[in-house]
């Protein structure tokens, strides 16, 4: 690892100034559970780390009439244990409490989870986010067993790694960003994008901008659930996840639905077609299955990642069954 400068500002303004305008030169530093590994492997080489830990007001969950405000530096264990969040959105605290392992959850932050870099092994081996060699994707000719089946027109084939992003996007979270031009607030969904050329990142943070808060609207009776397909019980990345948020009438008819897939596309994947299937209907196993099919309708896979279509389909079905509170065997 090369020598680095470590800056520890105590205001957002100082942090933004210290970050400057070149994201490759200075990186915001929160839990560090992802960034330090990338630096040790020489994949990312920032010359300056700007710690966000000394800035007041970036941690904790606060309840307001308009919902919940969560500081971006809240560590995942605190998030998982937060009573107010657990009361409003048990699916979110459950997802936070399940991910990685205790050591990671003790240092990793909400912001870091949402903005961590993809786990693509070509990127992690220093071949770049798009893994292009002579203009050709190494992924497509290589081993893509964990790569994208949706939003994979190329050249990006990695998958968005965040476990929390899908469920937060499903419930309509907003991201509060602070940068040289001050504060802005966007839908969390809009924070993510699929890079089209080298140099572009997988998110919409502008130079010098940091994520300071995530706002969650009140659950207002919506049914929210996630299903994760994970090979190992702990310390493993999901192979596919689905998060759903349902607004339902007393008779069980769905009036609004959000279905968001994780680990299957270069960004949290909002499955509009799946939501469409659910609208105006009561959820049963057959409808949940149908929504699962719709969610992967446009999926494109090859030999090595074909299984992920089945996993995504099942994750949607099982998340819907959990959210609707029905038992599959009935």
């Amino acid at each position, binding site marked *: *690892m090369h020598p680095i400068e470590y800056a520890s500002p105590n205001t957002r303004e100082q942090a933004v100034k210290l970050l400057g305008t070149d994201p490759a030169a200075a990186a915001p530093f929160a839990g560090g559970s992802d960034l330090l590994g990338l630096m040790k492997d020489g994949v990312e080489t920032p010359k300056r780390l700007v710690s966000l830990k000394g800035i007041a007001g970036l941690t904790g969950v606060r309840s307001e009439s308009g919902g919940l405000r969560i500081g971006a530096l809240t560590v995942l264990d605190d998030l998982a244990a937060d009573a107010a969040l657990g009361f409003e959105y048990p699916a979110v605290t459950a997802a936070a409490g399940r991910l990685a392992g205790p050591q990671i959850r003790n240092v990793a932050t909400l912001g870091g989870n949402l903005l961590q870099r993809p786990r693509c*092994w070509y990127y992690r081996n220093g071949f770049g986010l798009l893994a292009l060699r002579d203009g050709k994707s190494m992924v497509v000719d290589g081993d893509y067993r964990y790569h994208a089946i949706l939003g994979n027109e190329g050249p990006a084939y990695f998958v968005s790694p965040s476990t929390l992003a899908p469920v937060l996007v499903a419930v309509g979270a907003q991201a509060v960003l602070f940068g040289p031009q001050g504060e802005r607030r966007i839908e969390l969904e809009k924070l993510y994008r699929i890079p089209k050329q080298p140099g572009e990142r997988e998110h919409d943070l502008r130079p010098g901008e940091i994520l300071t808060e995530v706002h969650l609207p009140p659950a207002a009776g919506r049914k929210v659930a996630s299903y994760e397909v994970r*090979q*190992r019980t*702990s310390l493993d990345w999901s*192979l596919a996840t689905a998060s759903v948020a349902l607004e339902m009438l007393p008779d069980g008819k769905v009036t609004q639905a959000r279905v968001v897939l994780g680990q299957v596309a270069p960004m949290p994947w909002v499955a509009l077609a799946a939501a469409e299937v659910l609208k105006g209907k009561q959820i049963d196993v057959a409808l949940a299955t149908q929504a699962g099919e719709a969610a992967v309708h446009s999926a494109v896979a090859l030999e090595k990642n074909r*299984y992920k279509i089945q996993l995504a389909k099942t994750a949607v079905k099982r998340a819907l069954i959990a959210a609707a509170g029905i038992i599959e065997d009935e």
Partner: protein
Amino acid sequence: MADQADSKTDAKAATWPKAEDRRLLGQRISRLDGPAKASGRAKYTYDIKPPGMLWGKMLRCPHAHARLTALDVAPAQGMPGVKAVMAVQKPGAEIQWSFDEIAAVAATSEALAEAALKAIKVEYEVLPHFVTEEKLAAAPQVNPGKEETEGDAAGALAAAEVKIKGSYFAAPVAHNCMEAHGQICHWTEPDHLTAWCSTQAVSGAASQFAEGLGIPAANVRVIADYVGGGFGSKFNVDRWGIVCAQLAKLANAPVKIMLDRHSELAVAGDRPSAFAEIEVGAKKDGTLTAWTSKSWGSGGPGGAGNPPLPYVFQIPNRKHQHSAVPTHRASSRAWRAPNHPQAAFLTMSALDDLAAALGMNPYDVVAQNLSITGRLEKIYREELEIADQLMGFRQRWHPRGDATKGPIKRGLGMSLHTWGGRGHRSNCEVTIHPDATAEAKISSQDIGTGTRTVIAVVLADSLGLPLDAVQVRIGDSRYPASSASGGSTTVGGVSSATRRAALAALDQVFAKAAPELKAQPEELEAAEGKIRVKAAPDRSLTWKQAMALFGRSPVTATGANPGAGNLTDSGVGGVQMADVTVDVETGILKIQKMVAVQDCGLIVDLKTAESQVYGSLIMGISTALAEEKVIDPVTGMTLNHDFETYKMAGFGDIGELVVRMMTGPGYDERGVIGVGEPPMVSPLAAIANAAANAIGVRVPWAPLTPRRVLDALSTKGVA
């Protein structure tokens, strides 16, 4: 006369004590170095840091196949903290695998060593590589082995009442020792080297250093107090060992090179891949009549080992042929029971598929054919029954395909295995001090198996002393020579040598004590801290009184294996059963329960023996569920070179493990036999069979990842 008496004593056939005379042997004894290891007081090679030590690092080639066209290490010389720089390969060299060593540096910190590596100028001409041996037809080179035949395989197959044909594939897996490969080299004099080395072969490493460095072997001292695992990957000092000593020489300071996890997974060996196309034929009653197999695999440039097919069952009419496929990846190394886990997976899968075609419980097919398993038949038969009781196999078994509603399917599977495990060549020196404490010196390493503890148990039991009155000194090439820890040979070797040395020491003590006790030496025994007359235990001397007969001198004696008397044997049998669930909508396989019934002759320490079986089950489950070295077709590099992407089973993944060791008459009298490897052979086979029983189709690929399970379900088990 005295000489004659001595030689008579030496030739006396050593035996193990009878069951009623064993006080420590066969008990459950916690390993003596457990507290030191758990508290961190135990110093592994990784922990050693002599004063002035430098950090060695190696520049590695990023290409799987290339010619080194230019190498200039000069820019690294004179950089801050850099004390030695050297080329490891010369321009013109053809590099055969990714991450091969090119140059090396030693510096005062790891960071400075890494910075120096970056300054080295190196150029390659990249050559085409081949790393996808599963596609046999695409291989540029295939080295077919000789055909092994017995009887008329083709004829018997044609005549078989029932037959099946199947293809089965096992991916290469890594060793993943907790402690990586490496050493610290320290020249104590210009031609005297001390090396702390993470090795499975303390005695052998000294000679290897001597040979590689051109110095007398007597000038080399190798130390390995504690070794963080080997599993077959640490028999050689390796190029990095010799380079480490050379850097230390250049820098005139001790140098440490330990591989990082990336290098460890890239170049420090693996278990070769194994693929096979198999046909098996049987009579309607399940009697096996015919076998043909064509197998191939790769373990790097040299190809790969030949799995012994058919495994365990010597089917009367059989034909087997194996081809080695050279690939551009680092050479495989012995991996806990070399070739056997693959052979068991390939054979037991085919036999399980045959049982399904016969409409029979695989238990019955196995039982029906035990007569062709050779001399272990009786052992297998006894073990099968016990395993059945522990698993409820026959009672709970259902035909292939769990008909239960819902996506979670449950199934049972089983496998058998065998291994040698005869004690290796080993020497022990026993010293009994005037204060009635004793020590054993053997150069053997303890690679984590409990070797230190079994030596202590044998010594204390033989001398009738409590465990805390004995000390074991191992892990130093200055002690009496002992062979490498490979092939499950260590426990038999060190326990036999220790037993013989202890008995020889006792002979001296008995000779002195006999007149005092008014008895003949052969009428005496050492028990309960005393030297006493067997027939009249009241006539005794305490150990201290007996030692006083020698004045202030300790008694010393040596023992060797092999030697007179049968203290060790070869050939163990084991039976394992697996109970698994498979989610057919996600392909997630979960272990519910594993049963392992294992024989290893006379057990020295029941607890460390059982630990070997538990460890094997966990490692085997891991290879069945997740382990797989992923070699990139594009670059030829190991893509999963950390423990995030090289997936291994965790505590939540291993299920309930039940271990039963076979002991007592029929087992104990065979002597001590190794158990480190045999229980590692069957888990994959048993789990793969349980998965097929659960979901109704064969998953022909190991590991049985969600992808492989779902692929098998969608193709109905056709590979």
